[in-house]
C-alpha cells in the first residue's frame, strides 16, 4: 500500500471515530433525540471498502450507518444537521441518524429495517449491468441481516445474473442483543456464499489493509463482469446496540477485552509507522485536522435553522 492511501484510510477511520464521539457528546447534551447506533470499532470496514468506490457507485447502508456515509464522502455538517433535526440536514431533519441518504454520492441510504437495503443494492447493480456501465453496488449489512429473507433472495439473484454487487457483512458479533454464535450454526458466515455460487471471503474487520485488499479484488471482479462476492468482515462494536444500551448480554470483561484488542485505529497506527508509511507526528497531525474539521461541522450544524413546520404533502409524490 502506498503512503497516500494508508494515510487516507487512517483519516477516514479517524473521522468516523471522531464523528461517533461527537455524536455521543451531543446526545448526552440532549441535543439529539431518539437514538444513535455507534459504528466505533467497525471503521476499517467502511473505510477499506469505500476507498475503491467512485461517486457514481451505489451503496446501501444500515441503522449503524454513519461510517458508511462518511466513507462514501458525505458532508459532515449536513450529517450532524440531520442528527440535530435541522432544516440543513441531509433529509431536512426528517430522517435523523438512521436514515441518511446522499443522492450526490450514490448513497441509497441508511435503513432502519435490518436487511431492507440488500435487494435495493441488487437492483441498482441490475441497472448498471443492463446499461453497460462499470458501476458497482455495495450493500453493507450486519450479521443480523444475514438471517433475513432478503439476504437469501438477493444473493441468489445476484449470483444467477452475475451482477456487479458486493455484499459486505459486518459481523459485529451481535444482532441487537443476540450473539452471532447463537444465531448461526456455522462459525464462518462466508461459507454461505458457496450455497449461492459466488466467492465468499472472510477477513479481519479490524485490519483496514486486509479489508482494502479483499474489497479491491471483489470490486475489480464486479466491474469486469465477474459477478458478486460475499465479503464477511469479522468485527466488534465498541458501544452497545444503541447509545445507552445497558448491555446485559455482555460482560464487562468481554467489552473491555475487545475494546483494547480490537481497535482498527490503533492497529492502523501500528503498521503505518512500522512500515514507514507515516510517522506518529503525521498521524497526530491528521487527528488534529479531523478534530478541527469536526468542530467546524458541529458549529455549522448547530447554527442551522430548526426543521420547518410540518407541511403535508411534501416530497411524497411528484404530483398528487
Amino acid at each position, binding site marked *: 500500500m502506498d503512503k497516500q492511501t494508508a494515510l487516507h484510510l487512517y483519516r477516514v477511520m479517524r473521522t468516523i471515530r471522531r464523528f461517533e464521539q461527537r455524536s455521543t457528546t451531543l446526545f448526552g447534551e440532549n441535543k439529539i433525540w431518539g437514538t444513535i447506533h455507534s459504528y466505533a470499532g467497525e471503521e476499517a470496514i467502511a473505510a477499506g471498502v469505500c476507498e475503491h468506490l467512485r461517486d457514481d457507485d451505489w451503496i446501501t447502508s444500515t441503522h449503524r450507518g454513519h461510517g458508511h456515509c462518511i466513507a462514501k464522502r458525505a458532508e459532515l455538517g449536513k450529517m450532524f444537521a440531520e442528527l440535530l433535526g435541522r432544516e440543513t440536514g441531509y433529509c431536512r431533519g426528517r430522517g435523523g441518524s438512521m436514515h441518511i441518504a446522499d443522492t450526490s454520492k450514490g448513497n441509497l441510504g441508511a435503513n432502519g*429495517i435490518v436487511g431492507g437495503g440488500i*435487494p435495493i443494492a441488487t437492483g441498482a447493480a441490475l441497472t448498471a449491468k443492463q446499461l453497460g456501465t462499470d458501476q458497482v453496488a455495495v450493500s453493507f449489512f450486519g450479521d443480523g441481516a444475514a438471517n433475513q429473507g432478503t439476504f437469501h433472495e438477493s444473493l441468489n439473484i445476484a449470483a444467477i445474473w452475475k451482477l456487479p454487487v458486493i455484499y459486505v457483512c459486518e459481523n459485529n458479533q451481535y444482532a441487537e442483543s443476540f450473539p452471532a454464535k447463537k444465531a448461526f450454526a456455522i462459525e464462518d458466515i462466508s461459507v454461505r456464499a458457496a450455497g449461492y455460487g459466488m466467492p465468499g471471503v472472510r477477513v479481519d474487520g479490524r485490519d483496514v489493509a486486509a479489508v482494502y485488499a479483499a474489497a479491491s479484488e471483489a470490486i475489480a471482479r464486479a466491474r469486469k463482469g465477474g459477478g458478486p462476492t460475499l465479503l464477511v468482515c469479522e468485527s466488534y462494536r465498541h458501544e452497545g446496540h444503541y447509545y445507552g444500551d445497558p448491555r446485559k448480554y455482555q460482560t464487562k470483561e468481554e467489552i473491555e477485552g475487545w475494546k483494547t484488542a480490537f481497535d482498527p485505529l490503533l492497529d492502523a497506527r501500528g503498521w503505518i509507522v512500522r512500515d514507514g508509511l507515516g510517522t506518529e507526528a503525521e498521524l497526530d497531525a491528521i487527528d488534529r485536522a479531523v478534530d478541527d474539521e469536526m468542530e467546524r461541522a458541529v458549529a455549522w450544524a448547530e447554527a442551522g435553522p430548526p426543521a420547518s413546520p410540518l407541511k*403535508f404533502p411534501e*416530497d411524497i409524490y411528484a404530483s398528487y
Partner: protein
Amino acid sequence: MAEKSNVQAVHDTLRDEFRRDDRVIILGEDVGVRGGVFRVTDGFIEEFGPDRVIDMPLAESAIVGVAIGAAIAGLVPIAEMQFADFSAPAFEQIVDEAARIRYRSNGQWNVPIVIRMPWGAGVHGALYHSQSLEAFYAHVPGLKVVVPSTPKDITGMLRSAIRDPDPVIFLEHKATYRAVKGDVPDGDFTIPLGPADVKRDGTDITVYAYGLMLHRCLEAAETLGREGISVDVVDVRSLRPLDSETILREARKTGKCLIVYEDNRLFGAGAEICAMIAEEAFDSLDAPVMRLAGPESPATPFNKIQEDAFLPNADNIATKMRELAAY
C-alpha cells in the same frame, strides 16, 4: 377503436410501452418463457428478450426490492406479483422502502415502478389466490393505488402508471380479465391516476364500486332502472389518490349513498369513502351511508357454493339498492 378484453388491454398496453421506451422492463414469476399465468406477457420474451422480460425466482421481496434499486438507478421496472396474495412477503419493500424513498431523500430520488397485482375472488382461487389487498396499500402515503376495471381505463391508466415518477400499485381484477370487454380508443391516450368516473348517470341513489363489483353494480342498476329507480354508479378507479370532488359531488346529487366492495367490510376502502361522505356531505344526505361488502372471513372459501355467497352479487346488490332508495 377496437374491442378488447381487460386482459388483452393489459397485454397490449404493456407491449406498446415496451416498444415506446426501452428502459421499461418487467420482473416476475413465469413472465418470460411461460408468458405469464394469465398470458399478460405472451410473446414478450420473443420480442423484447430475456434482459427486459425477466423470469424471477419465487422471491417476491426481491422482485420488488430489485425493481426499486433498478428504478432509482435509471430503469423503469414493472414488478408483477403473480397473484396479489403473493405480495405479502414483499410488504416491507413496498411499504417501508418504495413508498418512502422520495420523502427520505428530500424529493431528490424517486421510484418509478409499477407493481401489478391480479386480485379478487370469483375464479375459485381459494385462500391464497383470491384476496383483496387494496386497503393495505391504499393506507400508505407514498404509494398510488389504482383499480381500473374496463379495457379503456386499464389502457389509459396503465400508460399513466408506467410514466408516473412514483410507485403505483396497479390492481387488475382477475375475474374480469376475460369476462369484461369493451372498446378502447385508438392512439396514445392516457387517463390520469386519481379521477373517479361516473359510469352510469342517475338521480335517485349513488353507488360507489370498483373491480368486479363495479360490473355487478352496473348490472343491478339496469334492473333497478326497469323498476323506475335511477341509479348513479361511480367507478372509484383510483383509491390513492381518492377523488373527493367526484365522490362528494355525486353524493350531494342524490343524497343516498351505497358503497359496494368485495373486501371484508371492516377497515376496507369502502369505510374511507363512507367516512368522507359523512364528514363532508352530511348536510346533503337523506339516508345513512350504506355499505355492502364481503364477510368477516380471513380468506375466500374454495367451493362454489360458499364463494358465490361470499361475494356481493347483482341480486343482493339490487336488494340493497332498493332498501336505500326506499329509505
